[in-house]
């Protein structure tokens, strides 16, 4: 028996393991595929029993997602011009008229603004702090890092009480700026901790060589450390973005209109007379898809991000 065969699993073991994992993968993806499929169903198709796996796709869900509609009276319907585009055709076929564009577009845009704003700020501040923690003797460094971690143990609702009062006094309730600052405050601990790990891995000799060549410390940081840490900075940014993108508790309690993000909004989508599941699913698809793509891009650094840098592989 050769040494390789000891640790290399047999073909049969591989086959069984592969089959079981494939089975789990299929089952675990069903809810996600169902979200995507429901987004392309018509109302009746979405609630038919038994559930329809094969159906003729429709953009009704997406049209409903972006419009507010009302039921049209027969007189209105007969007076209407024949539809000139597919949106009107879909709406008219259901006996409805569009009253105004829905709020989904604005809520989605809020998610983008707050997500990217807070990500930029956390990564910018986080990189500076992480560099200082990594390279210099900062007094109370160990306590600070432990403190940064322990802030994550507070339930968001518990933090929301004083933040709610503070924002009310400062006029930050339901503003983009308030949410950006809040998410930055929550994310910065993760950003500093992760980035410190990445910067620790860059050999100090590179900077020291640059310092000897006459660079100032700041130049060395900008021209030597930053390019080396680029991958780490990018993956930290994606983690911060995903957190801000998915966050629900603060958004639900502290925003209601102007700055409301998509997660508290999507569950409140209703159609004319009841829950409109195709529209909800269409909204969910548009909202979840970017994260799915980022997850696939990020797969190499995933472990590090989700364990706060505790497991680096």
């Amino acid at each position, binding site marked *: 028996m050769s040494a390789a065969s000891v640790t290399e699993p047999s073909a049969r073991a591989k086959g069984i393991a592969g089959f079981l994992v494939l089975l789990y993968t299929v089952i*675990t993806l069903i809810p996600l595929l169902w979200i995507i499929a429901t987004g392309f169903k018509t109302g009746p198709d979405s609630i*038919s*029993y038994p559930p329809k796996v094969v159906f003729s796709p429709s953009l009704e869900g997406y049209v409903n997602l972006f419009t507010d509609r009302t039921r049209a009276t027969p007189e209105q319907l007969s007076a209407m011009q024949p539809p000139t585009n597919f949106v009107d055709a879909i709406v008219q076929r259901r006996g409805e008229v569009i009253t105004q564009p829905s709020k989904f577009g604005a809520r989605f845009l809020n998610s983008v603004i707050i997500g990217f704003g807070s990500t930029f700020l956390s990564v910018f501040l986080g990189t500076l702090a992480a560099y200082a923690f990594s390279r210099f003797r900062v007094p109370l460094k160990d306590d600070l890092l432990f403190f940064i971690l322990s802030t994550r143990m507070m339930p968001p609702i518990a933090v929301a009480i004083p933040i709610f009062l503070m924002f009310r006094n400062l006029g930050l309730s339901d503003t983009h700026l308030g949410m950006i*600052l809040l998410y930055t405050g929550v994310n910065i601990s993760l950003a500093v901790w992760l980035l410190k790990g990445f910067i620790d891995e860059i050999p100090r000799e590179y900077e020291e060589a640059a310092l000897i060549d006459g660079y100032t410390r700041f130049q060395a940081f900008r021209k030597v450390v930053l390019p080396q840490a680029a991958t780490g900075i990018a993956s930290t940014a994606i983690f911060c973005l995903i957190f801000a993108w998915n966050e629900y508790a603060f958004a639900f309690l502290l925003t209601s209109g102007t700055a409301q993000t998509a997660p508290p909004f999507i569950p409140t989508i209703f159609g004319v007379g009841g829950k409109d599941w195709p529209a909800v699913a269409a909204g969910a698809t548009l909202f979840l898809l970017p994260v799915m793509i980022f997850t696939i891009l990020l797969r190499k650094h995933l472990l590090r991000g989700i364990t706060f840098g505790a497991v680096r592989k």
Partner: protein
Amino acid sequence: MADTPIDRLARITPPSVARRARGLSDTAIAWVFVTPTILLLLAINIFPLIWTIRLSFTNYAANKPNAEVKWVGLRNYERILTDPDIWQTMQATAHFLVWTLVLQVVLGFALAWAINRKFRGNDLMTTLIVLPMMLSPAVVGNFWTFLYEPQIGLFNYMVEFVSGVPASSFSMLSSVALAPWAIVIVDTWMWTPFVMLICLAGLRSIPDYIYEAAEVDRASKWRQFWTMTIPMALPFLMLAVLFRGIENFKMFDLVVQLTGGGPGSTTLLTSIELKREAFEKWRTGYSSAYAVILFVTIFGLASIYVKALNKVKER
């Protein structure tokens, strides 16, 4: 000793000049870099924490900002700890916590174990399995209420398909007996990949030569698993339990979307109860005390656990 021109130059340059030549001193840079982060943490984390502790000794109500605020001492704490309803909340939280941890550890470890057999396509499947945990719990939780619909839901249909129990005969979210399990199922679906990823890192950290040595010693596969694989992967497994434990103790978004704490108070987890007290009944002082109790509990349990984890690591 090497005596290069640079060394000579360094010796004859006065320290103050050298510092100016390099721009800001290292200490100054350190402070400039760290200060904004510290200020932000003070504003968003420390200050609110102190404020919460202060409020917890008062009868303040946020919906009546002009009412007189009375200092009530420890009365809020006393009322919470002697309230029989809080134990029901704790019980619901404990049920959720224990079962999600058990299921996720078993499933997550089994998956990691299987993926570590390195069959073809294991990388692709790992990436696909991980997807649920990266998504917005509120949005996904909301959609699960559709899957759990008794008449039309896919979940109920699949249960009927597999077990023959009629799909319309049970409702996962509105039955007192089933609702606590409904939230366990969705959380397990979402977070098993988290445990799996950490376990996979643990299994991959075990060097091959240990197994080779065990084969030479003719240790059975079963014995190898219990005396080598499990102990060496244990610190990773414990780390996964720590993260999931903390997260599920503060669970809010997923469950509030699924059941909102109902039916009755069968799935009323601590965070949902806290939200009701703070933002529906507006008992700000009382709920601040509740928040402090939760924080101390999580912090205390986590500290004890981390000590145990460090002991396992040292072995």
